[in-house]
């Protein structure tokens, strides 16, 4: 369908023209961009940047020398320590607690709040050592992860796969190893009309994803098995089969999930040259951009 549109447009564009213009853009508001995704047992790290005006050719700069105040459940906890351009907490966040921050920028007070949701346990995970041919012409190791979705609430998930080479011994750490890209092959009707196998970012996406994310709209409260493929990059049984594979099921807050969906989808639409409405990046930062969000996780290890 897209090709058809291009062709039709091309016919007309043959005699049409492109003219550089300088549209009157609306005010952007604050230029402060904050990113922080925190989990239990790991210090909170916040990265703060300035946004770049759209026609500006400068690169991003981290904002330094800011006083970033951290609150826990509404009470002031500490001022974050600036370290290598990031702002780091001394405390380790805990499940169920609500965290918020405040910082004063040139554009005024910037703040946000989030919490750490409960983790969801992986009940079972399997991984096949047999490489299979996927519809797009790519190969992958079929894998699946099963978990019990908590009922009655909206849950948001992300799944990552870490692979650790164990020929010289394996770590007992919960998350260790290198992130291996994965693919999901989902036969779906694309509402955009470009029907084909929907594989991650579409038929052209053959590089895989660092993580897969999804919500529980269609399986709320059920035991759910998620099927996907692990691309033979780091995990490659032809080269070495002495590996430990860790499946990390993250429980995300809505703000984290929305950020992932919107930021990835914006890039996808741009790559496709879609005529759809551009995607606005979701944010929970007051007077700023980015996202400040907690998550939890559960790890299931396999040594196939």
């Amino acid at each position, binding site marked *: *369908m897209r090709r*058809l*549109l291009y*062709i*039709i447009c091309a016919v*007309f564009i043959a*005699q*049409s*023209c*492109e*003219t*550089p*213009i300088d*549209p009157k*853009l*609306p005010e*952007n508001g604050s230029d402060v961009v904050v*990113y922080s995704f925190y989990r239990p047992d790991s210090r909170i790290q916040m*990265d703060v940047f300035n*946004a770049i*005006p*759209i026609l*500006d050719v400068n690169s991003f700069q981290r904002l330094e020398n800011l006083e970033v105040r951290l609150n826990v459940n509404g009470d002031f906890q500490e001022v974050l320590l600036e370290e290598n351009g990031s702002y780091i907490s001394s405390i380790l966040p805990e499940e169920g607690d609500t965290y918020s921050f405040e910082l004063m920028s040139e554009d005024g007070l910037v703040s946000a709040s989030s919490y750490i949701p409960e983790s969801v346990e992986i009940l079972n995970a399997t991984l096949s050592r047999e490489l299979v041919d*996927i519809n797009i*012409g790519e190969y992958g190791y079929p894998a699946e992860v099963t978990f019990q979705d908590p009922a009655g609430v909206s849950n948001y998930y992300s799944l990552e796969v870490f692979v650790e080479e164990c020929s010289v011994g394996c770590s007992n750490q919960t*998350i260790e190893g290198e*992130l291996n890209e994965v693919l*999901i092959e*989902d*036969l*779906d*009707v694309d*509402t*955009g*009309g470009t*029907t*084909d196998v929907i594989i991650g*970012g579409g038929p052209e996406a053959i590089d895989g*994803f*660092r*993580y897969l994310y*999804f919500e529980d*709209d269609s399986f709320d409260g059920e035991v759910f098995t*998620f099927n996907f493929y692990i691309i033979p990059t780091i995990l490659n049984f032809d080269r070495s089969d002495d590996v430990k594979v860790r499946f990390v099921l*993250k429980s995300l807050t809505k703000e984290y999930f929305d*950020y992932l*969906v919107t*930021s*990835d*989808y*914006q*890039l996808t639409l741009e790559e496709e040259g*879609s005529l*759809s*409405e551009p995607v*606005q*990046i*979701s*944010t929970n930062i007051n007077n700023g951009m*980015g996202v400040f969000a907690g998550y939890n996780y559960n790890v299931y290890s396999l040594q196939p």
Partner: protein
Amino acid sequence: MRASLLILLLLTVGKVAFSQSSMDNSMLFKDFIAYIDENSDYRFSYPDDIKNKRLIINERININDPDSFKEFLESAGIAIKVRKNLLIFKKVKVFEEPVISEQQNEVQNRVVSGFVRDGNSGESLIGAHVIDIATGRGVTTNLYGFFSLTLTGDTIEVSFIGYEPQRIVAKPGVSDYEFGLIPSTKMLSEVVITSEREIHEVTEMSKVTLQPEKIKKLPVFMGETDVMKTLQLLPGVQSGNEGSSGIYVRGGGQDQNLILLDGVPVYNANHLFGFFSVFNADAINQVSLIKGGFPARYGGKLSSVIDIQMKEGNMNEFEGEGAVGLIASKLTLSGPINQGKTSFMVSGRRTYIDALTVPLMKWSGADRVFGYNFWDLNAKINHIANPKDRFYLSFYSGRDKFYNDYKFNQIADINEKEHSNINWGNITSAFRWNRRFTDRLFGNLTATYSRYRFELETILDYNYGESVESPDLYRENDYFSNIQDLGVKMDFDYFLNNNHQVKFGVNAINHQLKPGISSFRSHTETDTTFGSTKVDLNEFYAYLEDEFKLFNSTSLNVGLHFSGAEVASRNYFYLQPRISLNQKVAKNWSVKASYARMAQYIHLLVNSGVGLPTDLWVPSTDLVKPQVSDQIALGVASTFIGMEVSVEGYYKWMDNLIEYKEGAGFLDIDSEWEHKVEFGKGDSYGVELFVQKKVGRSTGWVGYTWSKTTREFPNLNFGKPFPYRYDRRHDISVVYNYELNKRINVSGVWVYGTGNAITLPTASIPKATWDSSGPSYEEFVKQYPGRNSTRMQDYHRLDLSISFKKQKRWGERSWVFGVYNAYSRQNPTFIDFDDTKPNEKQFKKISLFPIIPNVSYQFKF
């Protein structure tokens, strides 16, 4: 002259015997005065508002005896006083109905009924005015040309714009009349007496009716006359993107237009992505657009009713017309099957873009060959079984087809083939049975079928030999989405008297929707079918409306529309009151007001807002509630110096609108479309000015709209209201047509509109890729601070055309030359942000259509 002749006859010959012929015994008061003034020494005094009173002069009168005027003046509600040689005429205040003479009394409250048709072709004339001369009151013909008139006098006048009015004296005992009006040959004369009810007399507001003959005279895009593009020129109607035939009425979406072709809903009115509409003007009899104040007989969509009536076919003689244009040709034939009883009409159109491009591409040796065409076919048969029963069978089918073939085998061990085929189109058909049950009751039974279907077939087949390190690949996908309606409705018109026209009826429709189903095969997968399941939605409505005169100067159309829908286990019901008021405030001036509530049970999920065939029709469900709107409108209407003027203000609020979620469709393992949509509301308000000149050598209109339209969705645009994509503060259309002489016609259209609202980025920000091993910021995303928060440049364009008509032995031919965008304004179609070169980022305006000339050859026989 005619008036003088009549008076002369009356004054000298005395009582005149009338027959059912064009001879009459009535005249306007002003003509009467003019004659007396010319032939006597009397001076006069009279109020201005009786000038157009019609006098019925049955008795001999003596010009020198003003007392002899009394009787017929009183019948018209005029009193006379004589003071020496001064005649003082006054309006009788208590007068409501004329005094009925003894002779007239014999036929008092007699009901006559019948049909008004084109005298040459037998086509029904819709909205023709049938009046009882004695009272000056009348009725209009319905969609089938039927009328029922309560006659207090004995004279009926029938008129319709573009036709010679006809007047007859009703014979005693005869109640069934068939009027055949003859098209006026005086269109080029200075003044043509009009005829249909004038705008200030009509109760309905926010309604415009167009005749295809007028539409055809206007400049066209690429030589193709387009009904929908003409509707875009009316106030309150916004066009979509440049060149598109999509219409957006009073802030509504494209899916909120109830487009009826012979009473059958049409779900996709676009060919070629909206550059042309599916309606072939040669097959159309009349087009009406209602933007507000909807009568109770309409329902199912929120924002407009576009009621298109196909031609019925010539009952008397064989005729045809056609055109050969730059991109398409068309031919329409009609004639009697059984003269005076049965007629047919068939009309076809096809483009030939692919006939030129495909051979050219093949000849050039291109690996990829693609082609596109569309066609449509209209057909209708109508049969008069007896004076009470008439049957119609109408059919429409249209199809767009795009095909694309790729083949590469120039290198050894590589054999790549791709094929895609995209088809979309509508089929509609209707069977109608008209029956005149009594002189007052007319009924119409309609059975309808409508289907819109989109199909896409793609095959990819790559075979590689041993020298190529790549696996063979095969994928085949068939996708289709469709909406199919089966419906039956019964409508009744009950003409209680000239003051009450009651309409009532019921309708039931079964909608069958398949919002996206695919079957897939590949080198690893056997046949798999997936996608949304079929959904049945049963919709019904019942309505009752009465158009009546509350007082002499106040008319009302009051109605109730009750509709409901059943989908799966869920039922929805909506009671929708409708009211329109016309209060005459001065001569030729009236104030109008209306309120209408509308409900819509099926929705269009759009990807881009430009009217793609891939847009999905989806039903209301448990989760997705029906769209509802309320609209109030207030306006004034007038007719003076031969022009219709109306000014209307409206406010419309809509609820349960749907849009795709941000990010819907991407890596979404839940394929249910219901979970990919957001729900919100919308508001629109504005003022519309419409000045139209319908008759004479110069015709045309000026339309101006000031409006503001917003949408508000809790989960879009951070929950803040945002301008609708086609929100335009100012919108102007100037349409002018001038008949230089019988052979040459020139016309021009100028449009101006505030630039479209568009979403543009204002900043770049780093994209966080934050997996469990840590953060990275390798990519950038764009910050869009507000949806549709920027405006494109204003849009304006001038189109011109000139046609040269010539009579030939076989009929008539015309050469039509036109130019689209005469001063080649570079109007923005969209704005692109180009950041391919990091040091040369820029916004670019893309303009699609510079000046485009066109020529077509038209013929009629």
